[in-house]
């Protein structure tokens, strides 16, 4: 096992896949959180014609197969596509776009759901306290912080496990756009199962460590609040 670990971590291609995986996961979670949280909160706040349709479309997109998004982004970014001149196909920014498109509806849908449940009471409380517009916004973020964190963690989980879209848009180029999941997929197609499973476990362990770190900071806050 230790030998295998040493081999894995000394392989430049594997290290590159780990780097690309986490870069994509963090980048797309960050971008999706900005767009998704804003969209979810605005959707709760404002009424407009067609709002119900927008909500239904959002819910549909929450379950859209990543490979479909990948294909769409591929068609947009391909040389003859509308955004072909940007030369983003088979690049990390291109993969980032695909992942952001997959995760944003998930985050916005979840945020909208939480906002419908909690924000009206927060808003009424803010009025009774005489809070201004921005103070109310600040209060909403503070009061919903745990829910927003959960939405982001869900988005991160979806991002780190993504294969279809990144394979299509990234092209699975060794040392460049290959991620841990696409590496596993490739290893499986080559019949190399042991390394595939090993990489899968490594991916899970890394995600678990990250999750523990996030929970640790959250727990600190709760303890501070209690006593």
């Amino acid at each position, binding site marked *: 096992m230790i030998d295998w670990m040493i081999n894995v971590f000394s392989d430049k291609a594997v290290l590159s896949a780990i780097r690309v995986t986490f870069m994509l996961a963090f980048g797309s979670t960050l971008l999706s959180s900005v767009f998704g949280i804003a969209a979810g909160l605005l959707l709760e706040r404002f009424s407009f014609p067609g709002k119900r349709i927008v909500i239904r479309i959002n819910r549909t997109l929450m379950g859209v197969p990543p490979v479909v998004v990948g294909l769409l982004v591929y068609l947009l970014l391909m040389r003859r596509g509308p955004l072909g001149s940007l030369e983003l196909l088979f690049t990390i920014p291109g993969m980032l776009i695909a992942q952001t498109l997959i995760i944003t509806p998930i985050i916005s849908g979840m945020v909208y759901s939480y906002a419908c449940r909690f924000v009206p009471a927060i808003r009424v409380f803010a009025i009774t306290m*005489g809070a201004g517009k921005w*103070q109310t916004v600040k209060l909403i973020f503070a009061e919903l912080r745990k829910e927003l964190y959960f939405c982001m963690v869900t988005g991160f989980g979806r991002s780190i496990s993504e294969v279809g879209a990144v394979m299509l848009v990234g092209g699975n180029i060794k040392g460049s756009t290959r991620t841990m999941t696409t590496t596993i997929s490739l290893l499986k197609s080559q019949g190399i199962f042991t390394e595939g499973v090993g990489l899968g476990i490594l991916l899970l362990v890394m995600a678990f460590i990250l999750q523990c770190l996030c929970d640790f900071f959250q727990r600190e806050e709760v303890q501070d609040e*209690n006593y």
Partner: protein
Amino acid sequence: MKITDLHKKIGRFELNVESLSVEPGKIHGIVGSNGCGKTVFLKLVMGILNPDRGYIDYEGILPQEITMMTQRPYLMRTSVYKNLIYPLKIRGIRPDEEKMDELLDRAGLLEQKKQYARSLSSGEKQKLSFLRAMVFEPKVIIMDETLSNLDAESEELFKELISMRQKKDPATWLIVNHQWDHVNRLFEAVHYMEKGRFVKNEIAEG
């Protein structure tokens, strides 16, 4: 505060207040059976609901100078102390911790100062919500069944704090309380509601 031709329709319910004058600096009781529109009226005064038509003349009182407490108060996900000072914080006022401790002590909440506010009992939550509404000294204080389900000791405390405030700087109080026989001695005016309308106003003598 003068209310003229105030109208609000919610589903089948309709609130109609043709004319009501709320004398400033007095404690007003609002009395009526369940579903007669007391809460809708209070929410309109607070600005939580917008009227379909009509007008409330606040006579120079700013929205930030009005507060409202409900039977199930909203407490922020933070400590008792941070909840207490929130109205001061948003007004840019630095809280006098000694004074705040004194208030908490009076309400029997000093030991829970650093406790997570949502872990308090329902009575303690009501007390905290009351103190929080008092710290920034609003000019209009609305209480929607805030005094319901309180033990006798807490009720006495509330009455004492209300009386203290009225002696220091009289505020206008609008109080809805189903057990109003316990607190009616505080009322200086009583407004009776029936089916979305004010049907009778009584001003206490003396």
